[in-house]
């Protein structure tokens, strides 16, 4: 699983953007969605998730706000920005290019 996790980890930001395009979310929810979608084959460490959040925030691709929870501790929500949507399209495109090239080379 070593190359796989490295490759996937390199795309952490794109993966997060993909989740946020669907709806605003928070750390654990995003991780849960990822586990569900990959049938528990993949999950992110919280530390990885958070450093990705910081980078995305710094590049202004996501915005963050605190939620008003009736029950439990307050959660930090993230939302995608317009710049984020643009970036996501680009990253997805890059990935599809890379995928196509590698597939060709590994035939």
């Amino acid at each position, binding site marked *: 699983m070593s190359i796989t996790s490295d490759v996937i980890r390199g795309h952490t930001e794109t993966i997060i953007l993909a989740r946020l395009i669907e709806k605003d979310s928070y750390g654990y929810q995003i991780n849960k969605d990822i586990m569900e979608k990959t049938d528990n084959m993949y999950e992110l460490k*919280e530390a990885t998730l958070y450093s990705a959040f910081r980078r995305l925030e710094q590049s202004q691709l996501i915005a963050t706000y605190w939620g008003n929870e009736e029950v*439990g*501790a307050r959660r930090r929500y993230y939302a995608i920005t317009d710049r984020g949507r643009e970036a996501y399209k680009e990253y997805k495109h890059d990935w599809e290019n890379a995928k196509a090239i590698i597939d060709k080379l590994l035939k």
Partner: protein
Amino acid sequence: MNEKLRNHLDLLFENAPKTRKAFELKEELLANSDERYNDLIRSGITPEDAYKNVVNSIGDVSELFKGLAEVEVGEDKETNEIIKKLALIKSAAVGLYIFSFVILILFSLLRPSYHANFPVIGFMIMILIDIIPTCMLVYVSNVYPKYNRQADTVVEDFKEWKSETKKSKALKNSITSVLWTLTVLLYFAISFATWSWQVSWIIFLVAICAQTVIGLVFRLKEIKE
């Protein structure tokens, strides 16, 4: 197991900088870890295993501490060096202004002879010398170092804002001092040239108007930002 998780996070964040950002990150981590723990319990995992799972899923947070800003609340040495240098340049500039003014006075003391109009020559030399300190002051006000945040706290926010206004103040002061030096010089130049001292003092009134205008321009700039 809230307490156990909370304690674990407190331990993890022991070496983190004591800033608002750090506190908020800890809060976020706690909320997420808590929910994960509860989900695991609900799915039938034992408390012990659930706790281990959650701790493992957090991973290594020390990487994140860098982004939470530096700790030392001292001044940045490099910035201080630069500020000292700038102060030196400013003093030198003022010295040059005074020097040029003295030159003007000296030349004016010489009676204008038919092959050399000394006062005017003195005036011209003074203006030429003044180019140097004026350039120095403009350079200084543009190079003024931006205050580097030591930590992301409310205090630092304020310090950064203050340095911004300090910069525009420095610029405004530079312009004001240039204005008044030029005014005094012009006053003497015109007075010696035309010998109408009874009128030439009006230039000071003009200078006062100019200074008010400059003040307004800077206020406008501040409002725009």
